[in-house]
């Protein structure tokens, strides 16, 4: 095999080479499989960590620039060009800090929570397709459902951290966390359902393969809803009420210090990258792009570029938007997103099914995409009309209330 052929599909080829090496060393097939699985697990767990180290630097730098500051730099203590090794310094500081355990905490859950939240953040990466074919941890048949199940099951960890800290801010924050996460899980799940209906599979690799046209242009509404819901799921700014500094100090992490705090911090960033990767896979066509057939490694490059783009969008939203009030956040999910998603899912299902009924031989890829896009836009316009009507009514109600208040004040005077 030539160098070029090897490099063109480097992930799978390295795997095959290692597998051949182990088999040649006289190992049984079962042991070879076990060792290969362990290696891929380590690689998949290490990848987000490495990415996140640089992402934290990039986040701080971009946030600083957008807010008219310099961010990490070498003006005081040397921290590399543009302060690029600042994150390493922070990591070393956190690792060497004293492990403080406040009095009155519930020891076992208190210590377990950072570990579990970190583990849950890493679990997602097992089913993210990095490239065509075998460039995926495990192409589970339930793919996307596995991700949703784990992110839902990991909810209790926040509750565990909040409750065991024995601090009222932490407990309030944990309650808020669960309220928000449960509320936004529903629109997220339903928007994924629209994707699954159109793709015809739960497997992440099949969903990518089904995207002749990226689903962002086929299902723009579910894409938007999924993005909003995932912002809430990763605790990003407009929905960032778990650690609203002005109200709750630091939320459920308030009693954690040193590396335990560091693990919460890292898990948050890993979740953000993970959500970007999931969004890329579901709506941006994952590893699909030009020349992937000739050189599969290009698929990984496209995938990483798209994920970086999504991370950038996440950062912009996170940096620029203010925080909503808790009742607004919950009302937005239950009174707006959930009904909208339900309608969208129904419309998408009906249009898709109707198309296959009308055209017996199946419609072309573009006709189907166009019809679904049109249906989405109709739903979007109708939603806009309904929402603006509701907003006008609400405005009138508030004005009437204000007038009544004024009148009352005058009568009182």
């Amino acid at each position, binding site marked *: 095999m030539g160098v070029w052929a090897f490099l063109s599909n480097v992930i799978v080829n390295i795997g095959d080479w290692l597998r051949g090496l182990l088999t040649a060393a006289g190992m049984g097939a*079962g042991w070879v499989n076990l060792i290969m699985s362990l290696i891929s697990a380590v690689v998949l767990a290490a990848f987000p960590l490495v990415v996140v180290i640089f992402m934290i630097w990039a986040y701080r730098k971009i946030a600083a620039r957008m807010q008219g500051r310099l961010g990490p730099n070498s003006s005081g203590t040397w921290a590399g060009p543009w302060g690029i090794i600042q994150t390493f310094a922070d990591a070393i500081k956190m690792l060497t800090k004293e492990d403080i355990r406040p009095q009155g905490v*519930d020891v*076992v*859950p208190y210590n377990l929570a950072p570990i579990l939240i970190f583990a849950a953040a890493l679990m997602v990466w097992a089913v993210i397709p990095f490239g065509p074919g075998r460039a995926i941890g495990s192409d*589970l*048949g*339930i793919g996307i*459902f*596995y991700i*949703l*199940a*784990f992110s*839902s*099951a990991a*909810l*209790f960890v926040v*509750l*565990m951290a909040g*409750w*065991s800290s024995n601090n009222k801010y932490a*407990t309030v924050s944990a*309650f808020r966390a*669960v309220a928000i996460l*449960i509320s936004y*899980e529903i629109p997220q799940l339903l928007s994924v359902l629209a994707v699954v209906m159109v793709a015809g599979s*739960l497997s992440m690799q099949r969903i990518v393969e089904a995207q002749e046209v990226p689903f962002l242009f086929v299902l723009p509404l579910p894409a938007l809803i999924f993005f909003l819901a995932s912002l809430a799921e990763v605790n990003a700014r407009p929905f960032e009420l778990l650690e609203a500094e002005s109200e709750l100090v630091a939320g459920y992490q308030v009693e954690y210090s040193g590396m335990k705090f560091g693990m919460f911090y890292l898990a948050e960033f890993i979740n953000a990258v993970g959500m970007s990767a999931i969004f890329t896979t579901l709506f941006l066509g994952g590893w699909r792009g030009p020349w992937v057939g000739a050189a599969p490694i290009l698929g990984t490059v496209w995938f990483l570029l798209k994920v970086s783009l999504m991370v950038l969008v996440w950062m912009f939203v996170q940096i620029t938007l203010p925080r909503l009030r808790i009742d607004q956040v919950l009302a937005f999910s239950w009174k707006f997103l959930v009904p909208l998603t339900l309608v969208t899912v129904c419309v998408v299902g009906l249009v898709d099914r109707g198309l296959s009924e009308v055209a017996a031989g199946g419609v072309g890829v573009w006709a189907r995409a166009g019809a679904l896009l049109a249906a989405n836009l109709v739903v979007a316009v109708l939603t806009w009309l309904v929402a603006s009507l509701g907003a006008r009514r609400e405005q009138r109600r508030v004005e009437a209330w204000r007038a009544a208040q004024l009148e009352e004040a005058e009568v009182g005077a």
Partner: protein
Amino acid sequence: MTAQQALFLLFGVITLGAALAVVVGRNLFHTALWLLLVFFGVAGIYVLLEAPFFAAAQLFIYMGAIGILIIFGVMLTRRVMRQPLPRANEQWWLAAIMAVALLGVLAWLAWQQPWTAAAAAVPENSISLLGLALVDPEGFALPFEVASVLLVMALIGAVMIVRER
């Protein structure tokens, strides 16, 4: 002992041990966490049975929804911080009778069942088969719809209870 048997034993021990901890524990919050571990162990057994969809549903529904609901219930319970809480109240004998009766019925059912373990391979597309069975009138369409009607009723009931009058 194959790897599968070893894993089955591991998950069995996790499930049963955590279940025991739920019953004998004195800290309500800890017992709720142990209950989540029970759910997790059951999910592991589903994975061993090559039913990944059920495993994920177990995680999603039991750990993600029911477990959280129970923890909420525990947290909203009064005097939960008073340690140690009594393990049983005055109705313990009623619960014991019911538990023994349930055990008897389940054991009897298990005894009646001719456990002819057919070593058929799990079909590759088990999820789509499951989905088709749920909407097939010959299959489970009716129970499926009845279950959803029940859930809608619960939903409407909840809204009715909490709505402002």
